[in-house]
């Protein structure tokens, strides 16, 4: 089966006073209908990779790739208009913070409806039914009431579930989730990820989960790419994270405190070690 997404030698760069700075330095991967995790620290280029796939990087940012194909469509040669037909409908993205990603002057229901009717012409009654069903799918009790609320009237966890509902209602084939839970509590985090996981598996979608949390990614993905300073330093199956080889991955794992912590001091990454890579 042909992969859903194939990326080869993807580079993203931005101009600065001192010349172009590459934030993604030639990464390659393919994705089937599976769950791929991209892990890395701030500035590792993981979010830029996600955005580049959706062609969301604006000038003066520059994206080049030897190959950037989604289901046979060459993303590089798509016009803005053609991209609009892909974004949302076929590939969608859940952003980090529901507070900044929802429109404050539209009700939750209206926003979800907008996501749907942009891609599909449906009678109003059908739209309403789909919205309520979707809100139920993301485990919101009393969807009728929530659909009429404004974003400031819902909690962070609920806001993020609304975002997920909005992103999944056009039934895309690939979902890119960029730190979908880092603005949320631990207890809500698990719920939100379980919802994403359920929907992704039951609809047979592809998922790219971008996060800085190695453990979390290893729990919800099949495969993991570890990124550092714009390159992929390690690729491994999620179950084999503890067998990771690269010193950066090992450093990240060791730097995290654990529940039965007995170390007196946490090992700290020596950043100079990778400065050249």
């Amino acid at each position, binding site marked *: 089966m042909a992969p859903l997404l194939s990326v080869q030698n993807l580079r993203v760069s931005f101009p600065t006073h001192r010349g172009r700075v590459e934030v993604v330095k030639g990464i390659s991967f393919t994705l089937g209908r599976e769950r791929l995790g991209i892990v890395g*620290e*701030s500035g590792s280029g993981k979010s830029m990779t996600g955005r580049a796939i959706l062609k969301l990087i604006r000038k003066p940012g520059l994206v080049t790739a030897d190959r950037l194909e989604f289901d046979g469509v060459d993303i590089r040669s798509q016009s803005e208009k053609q991209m609009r037909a892909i974004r949302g409908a076929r590939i969608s993205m859940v952003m980090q913070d529901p507070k900044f990603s929802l429109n404050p002057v539209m009700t939750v229901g209206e926003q979800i409806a907008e996501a749907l009717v942009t891609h599909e012409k449906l009678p109003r009654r059908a739209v309403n039914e789909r919205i309520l069903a979707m809100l139920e799918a993301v485990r919101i009790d009393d969807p009728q009431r929530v659909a009429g609320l404004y974003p400031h009237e819902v*909690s*962070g966890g609920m806001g993020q579930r609304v975002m997920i509902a909005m992103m999944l209602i056009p039934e895309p084939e690939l979902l890119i989730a960029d730190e979908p839970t880092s603005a949320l*509590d*631990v*207890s*809500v*985090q*698990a719920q939100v990820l379980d919802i994403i996981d359920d929907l992704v598996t039951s609809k047979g979608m592809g998922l790219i989960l971008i996060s*800085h*949390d*190695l*453990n*979390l990614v290893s*729990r919800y993905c099949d495969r993991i790419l570890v990124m550092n300073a714009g390159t992929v330093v390690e690729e491994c199956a999620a179950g084999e994270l503890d067998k990771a080889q690269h010193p950066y991955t090992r*450093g*990240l794992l060791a*730097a*995290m*405190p*654990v*529940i*039965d*912590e*007995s*170390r*007196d*001091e*946490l*090992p*700290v*990454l020596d950043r100079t070690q990778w400065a050249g890579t």
Partner: protein
Amino acid sequence: MSAISLSNLDISYGDTKVVHGVNLDIAEGESFALVGESGSGKSTILRAIAGLAPDWTGEIAVLGKTRSHGIERDVARQVQMVFQDPYGSLHPRKTIDAVLSEPLDINGIGNRGERVEAMLGAVGLDQRFRFRFPHQLSGGQRQRVAIARALMLEPKVLLLDEPTSALDVSVQAEILNLLKRLRREQGLTYLLVTHNLPVVSFLCDRLAVMRQGRIVEVADVELLKTERLVEPYSRELLAATEGRVLADTPS
């Protein structure tokens, strides 16, 4: 003597009561954690102790002295707070030097230059950062500045409100090491608010689990490490942290 003791503390914001009847006693030199989900009132307790949430009833005593509802300079000199977001808690148009000198200025303490220099050293920041602005620093460096500012008045108690949740894991490790070392060196008392249980294991001696404005369980950190917390809600939190569903909880 206890560093902080709270008895029958109720805290409200306007008409909404958010903390109900909290009793806590934190010994001097102890590192104590408040854990729970957002909205459980844990940050509000810190704010009340610091004097930022004045609408409370009950009793708050700091180092044996009960505090009033107003601003108290004595309390401020002994109890300082470090906030969650290092991007929001430093004045964008003040240099690091100005940020660190301000508490000294307010309290009429001299010898400012030397104290600022010494404090930068203590939190592991190079002297070249002294005359920079916050936007020229990384998140971890800013959080070091925020900790330095809290320590400028040589307080006995630090109130830490999610001090590492905005940071990367490797930077979090640096800040946690720093907090641990400072506590050892200066004999500080910590009251830490977090929802990250492994951080509690690393940094604290005891913890209190909060839910909906009430403390549901106070336990020794050993019980957390060996996963022997008693209350169902505490066990739920623990399970969420480890990403598993408890076998014996009906859901």
